[in-house]
């Protein structure tokens, strides 16, 4: 279970303090939780705060009752948090198998490593020994990012816009991966997404706009109001 208590995050931009995340509190214990809202609303920042990449200026974060606010990225990873980046990181010389091995945490056979790639729709033998470098397309790197997160099998996994760039692979397959991850680890999966089809599988939907939590509840409670009186641009909404 993940709990955020009064979490705020401020940056100093040209001597002006700007609040990116404003006093957010919520609890996540469900299977799938979607975080949605307009671009620039603070979704990715919040994910980075949970993973320990950014330190909140105020508030506390608890994982399974333990205060993890002061833990490093590594310690949080070891305590059971995984984070699939929106923009996968490229390396030079480090192979897909190396990365999956790091994710699992101990040496594994090529067959084991391949099984994770097959789950995300990649022909394992074509990728397992490839470097995760700039020669891979955005979609390929994205699926490998998802495979790494899957390989970790932690109690909390965060996906930042996992659907972006995976055009050739269906949403249905992505959703199957989430279901399988939950089956295996029993943990919670947080998905940052704009996609209705992903929001539709969520047990809980959190809407962030301008750094504030504007709505939280079941998808039936939150989704109908999203476009009508949600935080979107009025002009844009009127055109839709």
């Amino acid at each position, binding site marked *: 279970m993940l709990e955020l208590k009064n979490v705020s995050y401020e940056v100093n931009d040209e001597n002006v303090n700007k609040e990116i995340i404003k006093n957010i509190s919520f609890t996540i214990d469900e299977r799938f939780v979607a975080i949605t809202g307009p671009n620039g609303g603070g979704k990715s920042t919040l994910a980075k705060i949970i*993973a320990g*990449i950014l330190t909140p200026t105020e508030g506390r974060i608890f994982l399974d009752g333990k205060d993890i606010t002061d833990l*490093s*990225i*590594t310690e949080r*990873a*070891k305590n059971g*948090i*995984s*984070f699939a*980046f929106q923009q996968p*990181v490229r*390396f*030079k*010389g*480090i*192979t897909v198998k*190396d*990365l999956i091995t*790091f*994710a699992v*945490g101990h040496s594994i056979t090529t067959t084991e490593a391949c099984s994770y790639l097959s789950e995300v729709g990649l022909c394992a033998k074509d990728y397992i020994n490839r*470097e995760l470098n700039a020669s891979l397309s955005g979609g390929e790197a994205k699926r490998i990012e998802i495979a*790494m997160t899957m390989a*970790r099998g932690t109690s909390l996994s965060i996906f930042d816009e996992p659907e972006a760039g995976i055009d050739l692979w269906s949403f249905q397959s992505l959703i199957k991966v989430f279901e399988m991850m939950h089956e295996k680890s029993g943990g919670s999966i947080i998905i940052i997404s704009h996609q209705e089809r992903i929001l539709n599988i969520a047990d809980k939907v959190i809407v962030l706009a301008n750094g504030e939590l504007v709505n939280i509840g079941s998808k039936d409670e939150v989704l109908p109001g999203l476009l009508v009186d949600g935080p979107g641009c009025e002009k844009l909404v009127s055109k839709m």
Partner: protein
Amino acid sequence: MDKITKDLLEQVAGLHEIPTGAYNIRKDGELYGRNVSANIDIVTKTDKPGIDIIVKDNTVNESVHIPVIIAQSGLKESVYNDFFIGENCDVTIIAGCGIHNGGKDASEHSGIHSFDVGKNSKVKYVEKHYGQGEGTGERIMNPKTNILLREGSYMEMDTVQIEGIDSTKRETTARILDDAKLIIKEKIMTHDKQYAETNFSVDLDGENSSTDVVSRSVAKDESTQLFKSEINGNGVCHGHSECDAIIMDNASVKAVPALTANNVEASLVHEAAIGKIAGEQLIKLMTLGLSEEEAEKEIVAGFLK
């Protein structure tokens, strides 16, 4: 074979025992072992230290090992090795030098290698430099490589210096004739107060000649590196050089690329990037459970793989 010799041979030539095929092992300035094959002859030079390696026309799938071991502190030597590769060959040459310096005097090896690669031949040349030893004496290597690639030939040169060489100044010059291609892959890591300088100069003289010079290096601690490359395009040719360096601690890396096109059909490209390890790479590995130190180690190891 004593342990030091065995260790050094394994480090520089990947040898666990005496190799099969042609070889020439030089230890502490003297011949330690030699074998020739039906197609590959090795002859000691009479005018200066070194050997001639003569590969007959049409020799394929053969290898030559010519490692040099220095275990005696204070030894300084210059060795001339000349390779004459016939036509239509496909051979692998494994050179390399390992210095174990257990004393206080500097040990120094300068290997001057020249290659004359015959028409339509293919050569893979692997060179590894390595130093070890508890002594305070410096371990110095100054290799020189001069290459002539004749029509239609191909050479790949893999040169690696990962550890233990206090000072190195390496010079490589090449002349590439029609339809010939030279690939150079250099990997260097320096640490403590080490100094490494590399200087590549390639003349693309032939029609459709090409070269690809790629250097990857990591400079740690107080070490200094200088990378110079010069490609001269004198005909219809294609040249590419790339210097990619990771800098850490208080190290210093300087890249000086030069491209000269003397023909309107010459296509020459240089890329250089020097910088610290990307923060996002460290963060990604840390989110997988590695500590910052472990992440740094893996990134460097991958980069130099």
